[in-house]
């Protein structure tokens, strides 16, 4: 079983050996408020237990006495899965740990151990399979053609300045947002193109379920496609985990630099504003921003969406924004497991949504916990008194709306202010 575990690297050695167990990280986690047993340190500890078994002499000789343990039974692995999927990889515990221990990164590695041992939530597993094999392209052909027709813009144009990255999730959950992004780019007189096919389901799903081979294959496939079109900028609409992966990690996954720059659409719009390329009118509404953990805390895109919003609404800053953003708990694939989302994707891709009893229970409980986890963040946004809560990620948007907030996608708000 030991070969299911990741190899050591300097950060992993640090996360593994240097946690003092002070639990200062605990209150930063949205799932800690669901149940204290989901404190970041305690989730990461499952991986530490496994690493002790593999990499320490004491662990090999004394086993559980020194906290070294690799799950043996199916029930034990399922228990680990329950913990590993109570982490949105939001990075909040990383910056609040006095030692800079990234428990979210540990949970990512824990999911790898789980995947290597044959464990992943069935829905995510199937989506990963479709993404890895490329089968999602054929399955979504009709949907894509229909979308491209309605967008009425160049597709697969070589040498366009901007390539708008559209994933299947963008299309399924927020087709209006993609079309509004197109509207804004047109209004700015941008030379842009859409891809000829969706670029991943919600790439890289391999990173979500812990399938490193898939992560590499999917990133490689999407980057080669992008390079084939040789744009100057690849612009992402989603503010979710695609941003850190394609902006920062893809070069390391493929071990080379690319000929284009990756931007979030808010960064591009901010450039337009500075250059006077986009005329926006004031909408007269008050709005606050729900920062996406991946875009803001793990990506550093904090100023740009704010500056753009300030040009169109009366902007109210939430109590904890930017690098201290409150996580809603849906990142790292959790929001994809919510019933409505799951069913919408399942229907579009022709996946049977049938789960066995244990899987059903797992997904249902997780969905319930996800709802509870988002409460703190939602309440804080409510307290701003803003008429609209703006979000940069379709999944966060769904969670905000489900909590009764009047929420709108960043791109849609800007599009409605285009003169």
């Amino acid at each position, binding site marked *: 079983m030991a070969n299911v575990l990741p*190899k*050591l*690297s*300097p*950060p*992993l*050695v*640090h996360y593994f*050996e*240097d*946690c*003092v*167990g*002070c*639990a*200062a990280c605990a*209150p*930063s986690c949205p799932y800690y408020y669901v149940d*204290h*047993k989901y*404190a970041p*340190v*305690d989730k990461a*500890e*499952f991986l530490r*237990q496994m690493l002790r078994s593999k990499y320490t002499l004491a662990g090999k000789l004394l086993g559980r*006495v*020194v*906290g070294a343990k690799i799950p043996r039974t199916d029930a034990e692995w399922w228990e680990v899965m329950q913990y590993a999927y109570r982490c949105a990889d939001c990075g909040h515990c*990383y*910056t*609040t*740990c*006095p*030692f*800079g*221990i*990234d428990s979210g990164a540990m949970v990512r590695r824990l999911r790898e151990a789980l995947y290597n041992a044959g464990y992943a939530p069935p829905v995510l597993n199937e989506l990963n399979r479709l993404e890895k094999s490329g089968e999602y392209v054929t399955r979504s052909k009709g949907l894509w053609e229909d979308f491209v027709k309605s967008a009425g813009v160049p597709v697969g144009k070589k040498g366009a300045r901007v390539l708008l990255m559209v994933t299947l999730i963008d299309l399924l959950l927020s087709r209006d947002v993609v079309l509004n992004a197109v509207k804004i780019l047109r209004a700015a007189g941008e030379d842009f193109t859409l891809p000829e096919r969706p670029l991943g389901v919600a790439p890289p799903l391999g990173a979500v379920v812990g399938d490193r081979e898939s992560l590499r294959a999917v990133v490689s496939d999407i980057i080669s496609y992008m390079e084939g079109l040789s744009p100057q900028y690849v612009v992402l609409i989603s503010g979710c985990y695609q941003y*850190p992966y394609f*902006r*920062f990690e893809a*070069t*390391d996954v*493929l*071990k*080379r*630099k*690319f000929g284009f*720059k990756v931007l979030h659409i808010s960064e591009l719009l901010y450039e337009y504003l500075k250059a006077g390329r986009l005329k926006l009118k004031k909408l007269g509404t008050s709005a606050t921003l729900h920062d996406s953990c991946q875009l803001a*805390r*793990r*990506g*550093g895109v904090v100023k740009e969406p704010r500056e753009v919003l300030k040009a169109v609404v009366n902007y109210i800053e939430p109590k904890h924004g930017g*690098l201290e953003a409150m996580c809603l708990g849906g990142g790292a694939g959790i929001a994809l497991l919510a019933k409505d989302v799951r069913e919408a994707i399942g229907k579009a891709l022709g996946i049977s949504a049938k789960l066995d009893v244990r899987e059903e229970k797992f997904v249902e409980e997780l969905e319930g916990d996800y709802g509870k986890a988002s409460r703190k963040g939602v309440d804080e946004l409510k307290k701003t008194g803003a008429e609209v809560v703006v979000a940069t990620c379709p999944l966060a948007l769904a969670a905000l709306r489900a909590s009764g907030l009047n929420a709108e996608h960043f791109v849609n708000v800007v599009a409605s202010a285009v003169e």
Partner: protein
Amino acid sequence: MSDILDFSLEVLFPVALVIFVAGAAYRVLKYVFTFRRGVYVNRPTGWGYRIWRLVDSFLHPVIFNLKTKPLELLNGFLFFHILGVILLIFLLAQHIAYIEKIIPFYGLLWPLAIPLSSSTGALTVTSPVGNIKFVNSIWGPLTLLLNGDFLTIFAVIGVFYKVIEKTIEKIKGARHVRSGDLLIWPLLFVIIVTGWLTAHHVASDMTGYRLLLGLHIASAALFVVVWPFTKYFHFIWGYWFGKLYEWYNLTLRRGV
């Protein structure tokens, strides 16, 4: 070698230092041998921002902890780490006198020396005959608080708080209370108590005094031995590496 004091000073401590150096090298070299060069492209940021982020990465956990777990910050960080341990280990006059014997320039810290109690500035280790040193430090009236007795109380409160907190958490089933904790907290307690008893000359005869001081130094030697292999290493390495790496990873590598 007549007693435990001589044995601790002449044998245990040097051996402990050798084990410490070997253990520390082993821990640190792991980072070197598992290193692999990455390929990264960051968002551009200015140096002013980068430096602010460096300061903030050290400051942020303290502020967050103050808001979310004030009791923990007070006991665990302020009483225990700052007042109880760091000041006591490095600035107690007796300790300066001892370390100065091994590392002569450590004597430069004399102006910061902390006396044993608020009522005496005289060093018990060097008194009563010859070469009496007085703790004539910059602390002035602050020695009412900044003295060995008070700081020992803080350290003991800190240790007890930690032991009780860990025990409660363990009973509740927290996974992060580890077997190593069982070793290090009692050890710290023994070091503090034997140190306090020695410094106050609780044993009335010379044999008793040498026994207590011997035990104090022996337990300190044990501390030095386990230092690189337990969470105590955070003081030397984990804390600094962790925060600096976080800064490198987020701010320099990504531009956050």
